[in-house]
Protein backbone atom coordinates (compact mmCIF):
# COMPACT_ATOMS: atom_id res chain seq x y z
CA UNK A 1 0.00 0.00 0.00
CA UNK A 2 1.44 3.35 -0.92
CA UNK A 3 0.99 6.68 0.77
CA UNK A 4 -0.94 9.25 -1.21
CA UNK A 5 0.65 12.62 -0.80
CA UNK A 6 -0.02 16.10 -2.00
CA UNK A 7 2.45 17.41 -4.51
CA UNK A 8 3.70 20.87 -5.25
CA UNK A 9 2.55 21.93 -8.69
CA UNK A 10 5.19 22.65 -11.29
CA UNK A 11 4.97 24.23 -14.70
CA UNK A 12 5.48 21.86 -17.62
CA UNK A 13 8.49 22.67 -19.71
CA UNK A 14 7.75 23.79 -23.21
CA UNK A 15 8.77 21.38 -25.91
CA UNK A 16 11.88 22.64 -27.60
CA UNK A 17 13.72 21.08 -30.43
CA UNK A 18 17.13 21.35 -28.80
CA UNK A 19 18.64 24.05 -26.67
CA UNK A 20 15.79 26.12 -25.16
CA UNK A 21 15.34 29.48 -26.77
CA UNK A 22 13.70 31.25 -23.87
CA UNK A 23 15.32 32.06 -20.55
CA UNK A 24 12.01 31.20 -18.86
CA UNK A 25 12.39 27.61 -20.08
CA UNK A 26 15.92 27.46 -18.71
CA UNK A 27 14.76 28.85 -15.38
CA UNK A 28 12.14 26.10 -15.18
CA UNK A 29 14.81 23.55 -16.03
CA UNK A 30 17.09 24.92 -13.31
CA UNK A 31 14.24 24.75 -10.81
CA UNK A 32 13.50 21.13 -11.75
CA UNK A 33 17.16 20.12 -11.52
CA UNK A 34 17.47 21.77 -8.12
CA UNK A 35 14.36 19.99 -6.86
CA UNK A 36 15.70 16.65 -8.08
CA UNK A 37 19.00 17.29 -6.28
CA UNK A 38 21.20 17.59 -9.38
CA UNK A 39 21.86 21.28 -9.02
CA UNK A 40 22.91 22.80 -5.74
CA UNK A 41 23.24 26.57 -6.16
CA UNK A 42 25.81 26.84 -3.38
CA UNK A 43 27.98 24.02 -4.71
CA UNK A 44 27.68 25.40 -8.21
CA UNK A 45 28.60 28.86 -7.01
CA UNK A 46 31.82 27.71 -5.40
CA UNK A 47 32.93 25.12 -7.93
CA UNK A 48 32.37 21.42 -7.38
CA UNK A 49 34.48 18.70 -8.93
CA UNK A 50 34.20 15.11 -7.97
CA UNK A 51 37.34 13.17 -7.15
CA UNK A 52 39.47 16.25 -7.40
CA UNK A 53 43.15 15.09 -7.57
CA UNK A 54 45.80 16.74 -5.47
CA UNK A 55 47.15 19.79 -7.17
CA UNK A 56 50.21 21.94 -6.91
CA UNK A 57 49.57 25.30 -5.39
CA UNK A 58 49.06 27.25 -8.60
CA UNK A 59 46.40 25.04 -10.12
CA UNK A 60 44.82 24.56 -6.70
CA UNK A 61 44.30 28.30 -6.60
CA UNK A 62 42.88 28.18 -10.11
CA UNK A 63 40.43 25.47 -9.12
CA UNK A 64 38.95 27.65 -6.44
CA UNK A 65 37.69 30.18 -8.93
CA UNK A 66 33.97 30.35 -8.74
CA UNK A 67 31.43 29.37 -11.32
CA UNK A 68 27.93 30.63 -10.92
CA UNK A 69 24.40 29.64 -11.77
CA UNK A 70 23.01 32.33 -14.03
CA UNK A 71 19.25 32.10 -13.85
CA UNK A 72 17.80 31.61 -17.31
CA UNK A 73 21.10 30.71 -18.94
CA UNK A 74 22.51 27.34 -19.88
CA UNK A 75 25.68 28.04 -17.91
CA UNK A 76 28.34 25.46 -17.09
CA UNK A 77 26.77 24.45 -13.76
CA UNK A 78 23.35 23.95 -15.34
CA UNK A 79 24.78 21.95 -18.24
CA UNK A 80 26.73 19.72 -15.83
CA UNK A 81 23.64 19.16 -13.69
CA UNK A 82 21.62 18.31 -16.79
CA UNK A 83 24.27 15.80 -17.84
CA UNK A 84 24.05 14.10 -14.42
CA UNK A 85 20.27 13.96 -14.78
CA UNK A 86 20.58 12.45 -18.27
CA UNK A 87 23.12 9.88 -17.08
CA UNK A 88 20.93 8.85 -14.13
CA UNK A 89 17.90 8.43 -16.36
CA UNK A 90 19.69 6.48 -19.08
CA UNK A 91 19.48 9.26 -21.66
CA UNK A 92 22.15 10.40 -24.08
CA UNK A 93 24.43 12.62 -22.05
CA UNK A 94 24.36 15.71 -24.23
CA UNK A 95 23.93 18.48 -21.70
CA UNK A 96 21.25 19.80 -23.99
CA UNK A 97 17.51 19.99 -23.49
CA UNK A 98 16.62 17.69 -26.35
CA UNK A 99 13.23 16.13 -26.92
CA UNK A 100 13.96 12.87 -25.07
CA UNK A 101 15.20 14.74 -22.04
CA UNK A 102 12.16 17.00 -22.10
CA UNK A 103 9.88 13.96 -22.25
CA UNK A 104 11.65 12.43 -19.26
CA UNK A 105 11.41 15.65 -17.26
CA UNK A 106 7.70 15.94 -18.01
CA UNK A 107 6.96 12.31 -17.22
CA UNK A 108 5.18 11.43 -14.00
CA UNK A 109 7.64 10.22 -11.36
CA UNK A 110 6.63 7.57 -8.85
CA UNK A 111 3.05 7.92 -10.10
CA UNK A 112 2.87 11.54 -8.96
CA UNK A 113 1.61 14.17 -11.39
CA UNK A 114 3.95 17.00 -10.39
CA UNK A 115 7.69 17.30 -10.25
CA UNK A 116 8.12 18.58 -6.66
CA UNK A 117 9.13 15.61 -4.50
CA UNK A 118 8.65 16.89 -0.95
CA UNK A 119 5.12 17.22 0.40
CA UNK A 120 3.59 19.36 3.09
CA UNK A 121 0.76 18.59 5.48
CA UNK A 122 -0.88 21.99 5.34
CA UNK A 123 -0.58 23.03 8.98
CA UNK A 124 2.16 25.34 10.16
CA UNK A 125 3.17 26.97 13.43
CA UNK A 126 1.94 30.53 13.81
CA UNK A 127 5.17 31.50 15.55
CA UNK A 128 8.76 31.04 14.45
CA UNK A 129 10.09 30.88 18.03
CA UNK A 130 9.35 27.37 19.23
CA UNK A 131 10.13 25.69 22.52
CA UNK A 132 10.75 22.05 23.29
CA UNK A 133 11.08 20.02 26.43
CA UNK A 134 11.72 16.49 27.61
CA UNK A 135 9.22 14.40 29.53
CA UNK A 136 11.93 11.80 30.10
CA UNK A 137 15.17 10.38 28.69
CA UNK A 138 16.68 7.10 27.59
CA UNK A 139 19.85 5.62 29.03
CA UNK A 140 20.57 3.45 25.99
CA UNK A 141 24.21 3.07 24.97
CA UNK A 142 25.59 5.50 27.52
CA UNK A 143 23.19 8.32 26.70
CA UNK A 144 22.75 10.92 29.40
CA UNK A 145 20.37 13.88 29.57
CA UNK A 146 23.23 16.21 28.62
CA UNK A 147 24.15 14.14 25.57
CA UNK A 148 20.51 13.88 24.56
CA UNK A 149 20.09 17.66 24.90
CA UNK A 150 23.02 18.17 22.57
CA UNK A 151 21.81 15.57 20.07
CA UNK A 152 18.28 16.94 19.92
CA UNK A 153 19.57 20.50 19.58
CA UNK A 154 21.71 19.29 16.68
CA UNK A 155 18.59 17.85 15.03
CA UNK A 156 16.65 21.09 15.47
CA UNK A 157 19.64 23.11 14.28
CA UNK A 158 19.43 21.44 10.88
CA UNK A 159 16.01 23.03 10.33
CA UNK A 160 16.93 26.29 12.05
CA UNK A 161 19.82 26.85 9.63
CA UNK A 162 17.47 27.06 6.64
CA UNK A 163 14.39 28.88 7.99
CA UNK A 164 13.35 31.74 10.30
CA UNK A 165 12.56 29.10 12.98
CA UNK A 166 14.35 28.95 16.31
CA UNK A 167 14.10 26.19 18.90
CA UNK A 168 14.72 26.81 22.61
CA UNK A 169 14.78 24.12 25.25
CA UNK A 170 12.64 24.68 28.34
CA UNK A 171 12.79 22.76 31.60
CA UNK A 172 9.05 22.47 32.03
CA UNK A 173 8.08 20.18 29.16
CA UNK A 174 4.37 20.61 29.91
CA UNK A 175 4.61 24.18 28.66
CA UNK A 176 6.68 23.38 25.57
CA UNK A 177 5.42 23.54 21.99
CA UNK A 178 7.15 20.26 21.18
CA UNK A 179 7.22 17.66 23.93
CA UNK A 180 9.72 14.86 23.54
CA UNK A 181 9.53 11.52 25.26
CA UNK A 182 10.85 7.99 25.13
CA UNK A 183 8.04 5.48 25.62
CA UNK A 184 7.16 1.90 24.81
CA UNK A 185 3.92 0.22 23.83
CA UNK A 186 0.70 2.03 24.66
CA UNK A 187 1.51 5.50 25.98
CA UNK A 188 -1.76 7.36 26.11
CA UNK A 189 -1.97 8.96 22.66
CA UNK A 190 -4.00 6.29 20.90
CA UNK A 191 -1.02 5.13 18.87
CA UNK A 192 0.96 2.45 20.68
CA UNK A 193 4.51 1.56 19.71
CA UNK A 194 5.10 -1.93 18.43
CA UNK A 195 8.38 -3.01 19.98
CA UNK A 196 11.90 -3.18 18.61
CA UNK A 197 12.33 -2.92 14.89
CA UNK A 198 8.90 -1.60 13.89
CA UNK A 199 7.94 2.04 14.09
CA UNK A 200 10.99 3.86 15.41
CA UNK A 201 9.23 7.06 16.45
CA UNK A 202 6.31 9.26 15.53
CA UNK A 203 5.57 12.97 15.58
CA UNK A 204 2.38 14.98 15.37
CA UNK A 205 1.78 17.67 12.81
CA UNK A 206 1.57 21.34 13.87
CA UNK A 207 -1.57 22.86 15.43
CA UNK A 208 -4.50 22.79 15.28
CA UNK A 209 -3.94 19.13 14.57
CA UNK A 210 -4.29 16.80 17.57
CA UNK A 211 -4.82 19.41 20.24
CA UNK A 212 -2.24 19.18 23.01
CA UNK A 213 -0.29 16.54 21.07
CA UNK A 214 0.42 18.88 18.15
CA UNK A 215 4.11 18.92 17.29
CA UNK A 216 5.06 16.35 19.93
CA UNK A 217 7.66 13.70 19.12
CA UNK A 218 7.71 10.25 20.73
CA UNK A 219 10.58 7.81 20.42
CA UNK A 220 10.04 4.07 20.84
CA UNK A 221 11.82 3.06 24.03
CA UNK A 222 12.12 -0.49 22.72
CA UNK A 223 14.67 0.64 20.14
CA UNK A 224 18.35 0.89 20.97
CA UNK A 225 19.16 4.59 20.60
CA UNK A 226 22.67 5.89 20.04
CA UNK A 227 24.51 9.02 18.94
CA UNK A 228 27.66 7.14 17.93
CA UNK A 229 28.72 6.71 14.32
CA UNK A 230 28.96 4.01 13.16
CA UNK A 231 25.89 3.12 15.15
CA UNK A 232 26.60 -0.57 15.45
CA UNK A 233 24.29 -3.40 14.58
CA UNK A 234 20.69 -3.07 15.69
CA UNK A 235 21.10 0.51 16.93
CA UNK A 236 19.38 3.61 15.63
CA UNK A 237 20.87 7.08 15.29
CA UNK A 238 18.90 9.42 17.52
CA UNK A 239 19.93 12.62 15.71
CA UNK A 240 18.78 11.36 12.31
CA UNK A 241 15.41 10.04 13.45
CA UNK A 242 14.81 13.10 15.61
CA UNK A 243 15.51 15.43 12.69
CA UNK A 244 13.11 13.39 10.54
CA UNK A 245 10.39 13.54 13.19
CA UNK A 246 10.88 17.26 13.71
CA UNK A 247 10.29 17.66 9.99
CA UNK A 248 6.81 16.24 10.64
CA UNK A 249 6.42 18.41 13.76
CA UNK A 250 7.02 21.40 11.49
CA UNK A 251 4.50 20.31 8.86
CA UNK A 252 6.39 18.18 6.35
CA UNK A 253 5.10 14.85 5.12
CA UNK A 254 7.29 12.22 3.51
CA UNK A 255 9.29 12.90 0.38
CA UNK A 256 9.80 10.66 -2.62
CA UNK A 257 13.40 11.75 -2.99
CA UNK A 258 15.61 8.85 -1.99
CA UNK A 259 18.43 10.42 -0.01
CA UNK A 260 16.37 13.16 1.56
CA UNK A 261 15.90 13.26 5.32
CA UNK A 262 12.12 13.12 4.84
CA UNK A 263 12.31 9.95 2.74
CA UNK A 264 10.36 7.31 4.70
CA UNK A 265 13.20 4.82 5.02
CA UNK A 266 15.84 4.86 7.73
CA UNK A 267 19.12 4.24 5.90
CA UNK A 268 21.52 4.99 8.70
CA UNK A 269 22.87 8.26 10.06
CA UNK A 270 22.14 11.43 8.11
CA UNK A 271 23.21 14.64 9.86
CA UNK A 272 22.27 17.15 7.17
CA UNK A 273 19.33 18.27 5.04
CA UNK A 274 18.98 17.36 1.40
CA UNK A 275 18.09 20.08 -1.11
CA UNK A 276 14.58 18.61 -1.26
CA UNK A 277 14.17 18.95 2.52
CA UNK A 278 15.29 22.56 2.34
CA UNK A 279 12.92 23.29 -0.52
CA UNK A 280 10.08 21.67 1.41
CA UNK A 281 10.54 23.49 4.69
CA UNK A 282 11.01 26.79 2.90
CA UNK A 283 7.67 26.45 1.14
CA UNK A 284 6.10 26.49 4.60
CA UNK A 285 8.23 29.01 6.49
CA UNK A 286 10.42 30.70 3.90
CA UNK A 287 14.08 31.52 4.43
CA UNK A 288 15.61 34.17 6.67
CA UNK A 289 16.82 37.68 5.98
CA UNK A 290 20.54 38.03 6.57
CA UNK A 291 21.55 41.17 8.44
CA UNK A 292 25.28 40.49 8.32
CA UNK A 293 27.49 37.68 7.07
CA UNK A 294 31.12 38.01 8.18
CA UNK A 295 33.71 35.66 6.70
CA UNK A 296 37.33 34.91 7.45
CA UNK A 297 39.95 33.30 5.26
CA UNK A 298 41.37 29.86 5.89
CA UNK A 299 44.79 31.36 6.52
CA UNK A 300 43.50 32.49 9.94
CA UNK A 301 42.97 28.96 11.22
CA UNK A 302 44.54 28.03 14.56
CA UNK A 303 45.76 24.50 15.12
CA UNK A 304 45.30 22.99 18.58
CA UNK A 305 47.94 20.26 18.22
CA UNK A 306 50.54 21.33 15.62
CA UNK A 307 52.74 18.35 16.51
CA UNK A 308 50.03 16.05 15.11
CA UNK A 309 50.42 17.49 11.63
CA UNK A 310 52.94 16.29 9.09
CA UNK A 311 52.77 19.49 7.14
CA UNK A 312 50.82 22.72 7.08
CA UNK A 313 50.96 25.31 4.31
CA UNK A 314 49.27 28.61 3.86
CA UNK A 315 48.66 29.27 0.19
CA UNK A 316 47.13 32.55 -0.83
CA UNK A 317 43.99 32.82 1.25
CA UNK A 318 43.60 29.21 2.39
CA UNK A 319 45.39 26.62 4.47
CA UNK A 320 46.11 23.07 3.51
CA UNK A 321 47.46 20.54 5.93
CA UNK A 322 48.29 16.86 6.27
CA UNK A 323 47.47 15.09 9.51
CA UNK A 324 49.67 12.36 10.92
CA UNK A 325 48.14 8.88 10.68
CA UNK A 326 45.72 7.83 13.41
CA UNK A 327 45.48 11.24 15.03
CA UNK A 328 42.76 13.65 15.94
CA UNK A 329 43.00 17.40 16.06
CA UNK A 330 41.01 20.56 16.55
CA UNK A 331 41.13 23.61 14.31
CA UNK A 332 39.71 26.95 15.32
CA UNK A 333 38.38 29.99 13.53
CA UNK A 334 37.78 33.23 15.39
CA UNK A 335 35.29 35.28 13.40
CA UNK A 336 35.40 39.06 13.70
CA UNK A 337 31.75 39.44 14.61
CA UNK A 338 29.66 42.62 14.46
CA UNK A 339 27.54 42.02 17.54
CA UNK A 340 25.61 45.27 17.25
CA UNK A 341 24.36 46.88 14.10
CA UNK A 342 22.13 49.93 13.85
CA UNK A 343 21.92 49.87 17.68
CA UNK A 344 20.46 46.37 17.66
CA UNK A 345 22.19 43.27 18.94
CA UNK A 346 22.44 40.59 16.30
CA UNK A 347 21.60 36.89 16.58
CA UNK A 348 23.41 33.97 14.99
CA UNK A 349 21.68 31.56 12.62
CA UNK A 350 24.54 29.32 11.61
CA UNK A 351 28.22 28.91 11.03
CA UNK A 352 29.37 28.06 7.53
CA UNK A 353 32.52 26.29 6.48
CA UNK A 354 34.30 25.89 3.18
CA UNK A 355 36.66 22.96 3.22
CA UNK A 356 37.56 19.79 1.45
CA UNK A 357 39.25 16.53 2.33
CA UNK A 358 40.87 14.29 -0.21
CA UNK A 359 39.55 11.00 1.09
CA UNK A 360 37.66 9.43 3.95
CA UNK A 361 41.00 9.11 5.72
CA UNK A 362 40.56 12.77 6.68
CA UNK A 363 37.18 13.49 8.24
CA UNK A 364 35.48 16.35 9.95
CA UNK A 365 33.78 14.76 12.94
CA UNK A 366 32.63 17.70 15.05
CA UNK A 367 31.81 21.35 14.57
CA UNK A 368 31.26 23.38 17.72
CA UNK A 369 30.16 27.00 17.73
CA UNK A 370 31.09 29.40 20.51
CA UNK A 371 30.14 32.89 21.59
CA UNK A 372 33.22 33.87 23.54
CA UNK A 373 33.73 31.00 26.00
CA UNK A 374 30.18 29.69 25.76
CA UNK A 375 29.45 26.80 23.46
CA UNK A 376 26.16 27.60 21.76
CA UNK A 377 25.93 24.67 19.33
CA UNK A 378 27.54 21.27 18.87
CA UNK A 379 27.33 19.23 15.72
CA UNK A 380 28.87 15.85 16.53
CA UNK A 381 29.71 12.61 14.78
CA UNK A 382 29.40 14.16 11.33
CA UNK A 383 31.79 11.97 9.31
CA UNK A 384 32.21 14.65 6.64
CA UNK A 385 34.72 14.23 3.86
CA UNK A 386 35.15 15.29 0.24
CA UNK A 387 34.13 18.69 -1.10
CA UNK A 388 32.15 20.86 1.29
CA UNK A 389 32.02 24.24 -0.32
CA UNK A 390 29.15 25.72 1.66
CA UNK A 391 28.38 23.58 4.67
CA UNK A 392 25.99 25.09 7.20
CA UNK A 393 25.91 24.27 10.91
CA UNK A 394 22.88 25.76 12.58
CA UNK A 395 22.40 27.14 16.07
CA UNK A 396 18.98 25.92 17.08
CA UNK A 397 18.00 28.68 19.50
CA UNK A 398 19.51 31.58 17.49
CA UNK A 399 20.86 33.48 20.49
CA UNK A 400 22.09 37.05 20.66
CA UNK A 401 25.81 37.32 20.08
CA UNK A 402 27.85 39.10 22.75
CA UNK A 403 31.57 38.31 22.52
CA UNK A 404 32.29 37.15 18.99
CA UNK A 405 31.84 33.81 17.32
CA UNK A 406 34.34 30.99 17.26
CA UNK A 407 34.12 27.79 15.25
CA UNK A 408 35.99 24.71 16.43
CA UNK A 409 36.39 21.82 14.05
CA UNK A 410 37.27 18.35 15.31
CA UNK A 411 38.93 16.16 12.71
CA UNK A 412 40.38 12.69 12.52
CA UNK A 413 43.08 11.31 10.26
CA UNK A 414 43.31 7.57 9.85
CA UNK A 415 45.90 5.41 8.19
CA UNK A 416 46.41 6.35 4.56
CA UNK A 417 48.75 7.91 2.06
CA UNK A 418 49.93 11.43 2.64
CA UNK A 419 47.52 12.82 0.09
CA UNK A 420 44.62 10.88 1.58
CA UNK A 421 45.31 12.69 4.86
CA UNK A 422 45.12 16.13 3.30
CA UNK A 423 42.55 18.68 4.31
CA UNK A 424 42.06 22.20 2.88
CA UNK A 425 40.37 24.96 4.85
CA UNK A 426 39.28 27.77 2.56
CA UNK A 427 37.19 30.01 4.77
CA UNK A 428 34.59 30.22 7.52
CA UNK A 429 31.64 32.49 8.05
CA UNK A 430 28.30 32.91 9.71
CA UNK A 431 24.87 34.34 9.07
CA UNK A 432 23.58 36.93 11.51
CA UNK A 433 20.03 38.23 11.78
CA UNK A 434 18.16 40.91 13.63
Amino acid at each position, binding site marked *: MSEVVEKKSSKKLKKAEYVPQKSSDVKELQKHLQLFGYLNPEDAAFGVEENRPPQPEESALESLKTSFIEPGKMDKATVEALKKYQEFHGLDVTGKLDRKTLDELDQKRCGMPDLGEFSTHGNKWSTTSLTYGFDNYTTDNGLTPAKIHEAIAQAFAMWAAETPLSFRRVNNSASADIRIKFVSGAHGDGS*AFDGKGGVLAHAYYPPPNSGALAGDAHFDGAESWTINIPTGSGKVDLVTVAAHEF*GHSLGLRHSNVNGSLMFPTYAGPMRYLHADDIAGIRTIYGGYSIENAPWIHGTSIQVEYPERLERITRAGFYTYLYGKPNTTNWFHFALPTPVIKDQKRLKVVCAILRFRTFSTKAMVDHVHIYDGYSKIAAHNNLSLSGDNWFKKFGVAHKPYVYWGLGISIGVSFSNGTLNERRMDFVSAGCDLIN
Partner: protein
Amino acid sequence: MKQNTVENQPGIINFREDIQKFSISFHQKNTIDSQFTCIVPDSGMIPQNLQKPGTKVVFTGVLVKDPTLPPPRMGGEQVYLLAELRSIE
Protein backbone atom coordinates in the same frame (compact mmCIF):
# COMPACT_ATOMS: atom_id res chain seq x y z
CA MET B 1 -14.48 3.74 -2.35
CA LYS B 2 -11.06 2.22 -2.83
CA GLN B 3 -10.70 -1.06 -0.89
CA ASN B 4 -7.63 -2.87 0.34
CA THR B 5 -7.58 -6.32 1.86
CA VAL B 6 -5.09 -7.27 4.53
CA GLU B 7 -4.51 -10.88 5.46
CA ASN B 8 -2.93 -12.18 8.64
CA GLN B 9 -1.54 -8.72 9.26
CA PRO B 10 0.21 -8.13 12.61
CA GLY B 11 -1.08 -4.99 14.27
CA ILE B 12 -1.68 -3.26 17.58
CA ILE B 13 -4.94 -2.33 19.24
CA ASN B 14 -5.35 1.34 20.16
CA PHE B 15 -8.17 3.44 21.52
CA ARG B 16 -8.65 6.88 19.99
CA GLU B 17 -9.99 9.15 22.72
CA ASP B 18 -10.70 11.93 20.22
CA ILE B 19 -13.26 9.85 18.31
CA GLN B 20 -14.01 7.24 21.00
CA LYS B 21 -13.18 4.38 18.65
CA PHE B 22 -10.79 1.48 18.69
CA SER B 23 -8.22 1.26 15.95
CA ILE B 24 -5.71 -1.28 14.76
CA SER B 25 -2.42 0.12 13.55
CA PHE B 26 0.41 -1.56 11.70
CA HIS B 27 3.81 -0.45 10.52
CA GLN B 28 5.00 -0.20 6.92
CA LYS B 29 8.21 -2.23 6.85
CA ASN B 30 11.60 -0.59 6.46
CA THR B 31 10.27 2.86 7.27
CA ILE B 32 10.90 5.16 10.20
CA ASP B 33 7.29 5.96 10.99
CA SER B 34 4.94 5.02 8.15
CA GLN B 35 1.90 3.31 9.55
CA PHE B 36 -1.69 2.45 8.74
CA THR B 37 -4.35 3.32 11.29
CA CYS B 38 -7.51 1.29 10.75
CA ILE B 39 -10.48 2.78 12.59
CA VAL B 40 -12.88 0.16 13.92
CA PRO B 41 -16.41 1.53 13.44
CA ASP B 42 -18.02 -0.75 16.03
CA SER B 43 -16.21 -1.79 19.21
CA GLY B 44 -18.20 -5.04 19.14
CA MET B 45 -16.04 -6.13 16.19
CA ILE B 46 -13.11 -6.54 18.59
CA PRO B 47 -13.35 -9.45 21.06
CA GLN B 48 -13.55 -8.08 24.59
CA ASN B 49 -10.36 -9.83 25.69
CA LEU B 50 -8.45 -7.93 23.00
CA GLN B 51 -9.91 -4.50 23.80
CA LYS B 52 -6.81 -3.24 25.56
CA PRO B 53 -4.54 -0.59 24.04
CA GLY B 54 -1.18 -2.03 23.16
CA THR B 55 -2.46 -5.56 22.57
CA LYS B 56 -0.71 -7.22 19.66
CA VAL B 57 -3.05 -8.94 17.21
CA VAL B 58 -3.05 -10.61 13.81
CA PHE B 59 -6.04 -9.73 11.70
CA THR B 60 -7.65 -10.14 8.30
CA GLY B 61 -10.02 -7.58 6.94
CA VAL B 62 -11.01 -5.02 4.37
CA LEU B 63 -9.87 -1.41 4.61
CA VAL B 64 -11.49 1.49 2.83
CA LYS B 65 -10.66 5.17 2.54
CA ASP B 66 -13.49 7.11 4.14
CA PRO B 67 -13.58 10.90 3.83
CA THR B 68 -15.55 11.17 7.07
CA LEU B 69 -12.64 9.80 9.08
CA PRO B 70 -10.31 12.22 10.87
CA PRO B 71 -7.18 13.18 8.92
CA PRO B 72 -3.77 11.74 9.77
CA ARG B 73 -2.37 13.15 13.01
CA MET B 74 1.21 12.04 12.63
CA GLY B 75 3.81 12.06 9.90
CA GLY B 76 3.65 8.88 7.84
CA GLU B 77 0.17 7.92 9.01
CA GLN B 78 -2.60 6.80 6.68
CA VAL B 79 -6.10 6.44 8.10
CA TYR B 80 -8.52 3.81 6.87
CA LEU B 81 -11.89 2.48 7.95
CA LEU B 82 -11.87 -1.19 8.89
CA ALA B 83 -14.99 -1.92 6.87
CA GLU B 84 -14.86 -5.65 7.44
CA LEU B 85 -13.01 -7.70 10.04
CA ARG B 86 -12.83 -11.32 8.98
CA SER B 87 -10.60 -12.63 11.71
CA ILE B 88 -8.58 -11.37 14.64
CA GLU B 89 -6.50 -13.11 17.25
